[in-house]
């Protein structure tokens, strides 16, 4: 039966080449946009270089304090001291890294200014993440204990600072904000879309200007808690929350009297969405925009395809009448048209897959996103396949329903 449906679907496609071209063009274009979007979301939220252990990582990004009436609140990153006391001390985690978010600095090559992003990290940063060291090695606990003025730089910064040289720059001097550092390692950079690991230059937290000695709870640091395995995430989170519960309340920070403290440790996606939690309006706008984009990307082309499909199906009224007359129940016929539509959508999906490969290749090589590594991996492929099926189903159900209401006698008259 399936081969009969597919034979018909194929013949229907060949019947009106221009119609078919328009249909496949619409489907392919829509699915290409959706596949590129899926690939981008995977790039944002998936476990990719150098955060390849995201599936067993919890992100601690900000602390939120509230006054006793819960009318006022203050939020932001934490101090190194705070995270050392409450996060670094976790017993259930395999490892915990503390680092700053992204800071801006300037370096000069002759008279040319290079704008760069920097990050202060501990030695565990290089264990929790999986950077590729193209030259040298990461700084270790000894470098940190000695307050060595060393840095790890990215290949991109190496190119800008030292020029396009193949020679090793390990041991060479880098001057940033009038301070001199010795290059200890060169890594392949992390994309700007991964702010926990993205930077051009990485300093040990004991180098100047890191503010790691700052007292109090608030500062410029964040943490990544690495569990031994994914199933341990809840245990690690629970332990972290038990540590947070030990914070003496109420307290005063920079003159602000707080009665409640909230610090969450969450998987990356939840952490990303959680940053919108503080602002209800912003969250509504964010999800509103996402919903609108999805509607535009799936809904409108699907409605358009519904119209095309309805006129195509009505062309086949005689066939519908015959199939019904010879015993096809309405449900079977509906499935026939839905399967045919999914078949066409899958052809469009195949074309879209090729187009997506081209588009993401262009994005990766264009430099729009530094170190972009958009791919079509199994996850992206499966989501894309699901999107194809949903699209096929959405645009096939309505015409199939319309067709199923056709009276046999009337269908046979056409």
């Amino acid at each position, binding site marked *: 039966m399936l081969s*009969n449906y597919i*034979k*018909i679907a194929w*013949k229907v496609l060949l019947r009106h080449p221009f119609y078919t071209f328009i249909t496949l063009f619409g489907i392919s274009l829509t699915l290409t946009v959706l596949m590129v979007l899926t690939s981008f979301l995977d790039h944002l939220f998936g476990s990719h270089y150098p955060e390849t252990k995201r599936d067993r990582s919890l992100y601690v990004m900000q602390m939120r304090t509230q006054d006793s009436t819960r009318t006022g609140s203050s939020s932001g990153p934490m101090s190194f001291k705070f995270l050392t006391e409450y996060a670094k001390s976790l017993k259930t985690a395999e490892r915990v890294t503390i680092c700053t978010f992204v800071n801006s600095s300037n370096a000069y090559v002759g008279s040319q200014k290079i704008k760069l992003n920097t990050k202060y990290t501990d030695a565990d940063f290089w264990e929790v993440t999986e950077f590729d060291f193209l030259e040298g090695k990461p700084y270790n606990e000894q470098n940190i204990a000695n307050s060595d003025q060393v840095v790890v730089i990215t290949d991109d910064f190496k190119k800008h600072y030292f020029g396009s040289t193949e020679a090793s720059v390990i041991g060479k001097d880098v001057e940033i904000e009038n301070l001199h550092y010795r290059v200890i390692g060169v890594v392949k950079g992390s994309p700007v879309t991964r702010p926990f690991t993205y930077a051009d230059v990485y300093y040990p937290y004991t180098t100047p200007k890191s503010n790691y000695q700052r007292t109090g709870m608030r500062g410029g640091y964040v943490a990544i808690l690495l569990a031994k395995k994914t199933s341990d995430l809840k245990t690690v989170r629970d332990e972290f929350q038990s540590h947070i519960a030990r914070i003496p309340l109420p307290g005063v920070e920079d003159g602000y009297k707080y009665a409640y403290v909230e610090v969450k440790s969450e998987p990356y996606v939840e952490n990303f969405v959680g940053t919108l939690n503080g602002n209800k309006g912003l969250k509504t706008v964010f999800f509103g925009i996402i919903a609108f984009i999805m509607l535009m990307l799936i809904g409108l082309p699907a409605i358009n395809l519904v119209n095309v499909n309805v006129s195509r199906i009505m062309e086949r009224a005689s066939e519908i009448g015959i199939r019904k007359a010879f015993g096809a*129940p309405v*449900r*079977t016929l509906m499935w026939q048209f839905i399967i045919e539509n999914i078949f066409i959508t899958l052809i469009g999906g195949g074309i879209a897959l090729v187009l997506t490969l081209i588009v993401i290749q262009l994005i990766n090589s264009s430099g729009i996103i530094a170190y972009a590594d958009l791919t079509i991996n199994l996850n992206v492929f499966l989501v894309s396949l699901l999107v194809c099926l949903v699209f096929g189903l959405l645009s096939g159900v309505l015409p199939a329903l319309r067709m199923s209401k056709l009276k046999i006698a009337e269908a*046979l008259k056409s």
Partner: protein
Amino acid sequence: MINLTNIEKVYRTSSIETLALNNINLNIRKGEFVSIMGPSGCGKSTLLNIMGLLDEPSKGTVELDGQRVSTYRDKELARLRNEKIGFIFQSFHLINDLSVVDNVEIPLLYRSTNGKPRQTYAKEALEKVGLSNRIKHFPKQLSGGQKQRVAIARAIVGKPEIILADEPTGNLDSAMGNEIMNILQGLNDEGATIIMVTHDENMAKRTHRLIRLFDGTQVQ
């Protein structure tokens, strides 16, 4: 076999009401070959559609093998049509995108018959109508007479007890019409009950019984 009691069929639009069939009482016995005649628009095809469960009467009851079908749902009606009735139409209604053998297989698709036996039965049916050398052809490659023979093969492939033919020779020349009529008579000789709508007196004379309609009313 088929029993119609007080059948009435009214077509309604927003402003017009047309009485297509009025108080039709009819009994078709097993193995009969019945023809229905009458002027255009007198309700012949409507009557055939009601007998074939392709349309519902506005009033009256339809019984098939003693079972009232008015309460049957779509799925049950589809099963009854599939198992008991074969249809032949004046304009053949073949699916142009499917080959001859695929067209003939259609009734078997809805019986969950597997691919191999399905093809065997379809080939047997085509052999019966003398078209076994055209199985890979497409309808557009066939003459009118050949198309109608494919339609007959499709009607008989599921071995239905009843064959309903709506002007099966209407689009054919007299020689081809006679050939089709011979096939139908052969099927009737083998036990099939046949009800045929026709405009042709000569064809009607070759059947067991003639029913005449005029303005939706049975006059003979």
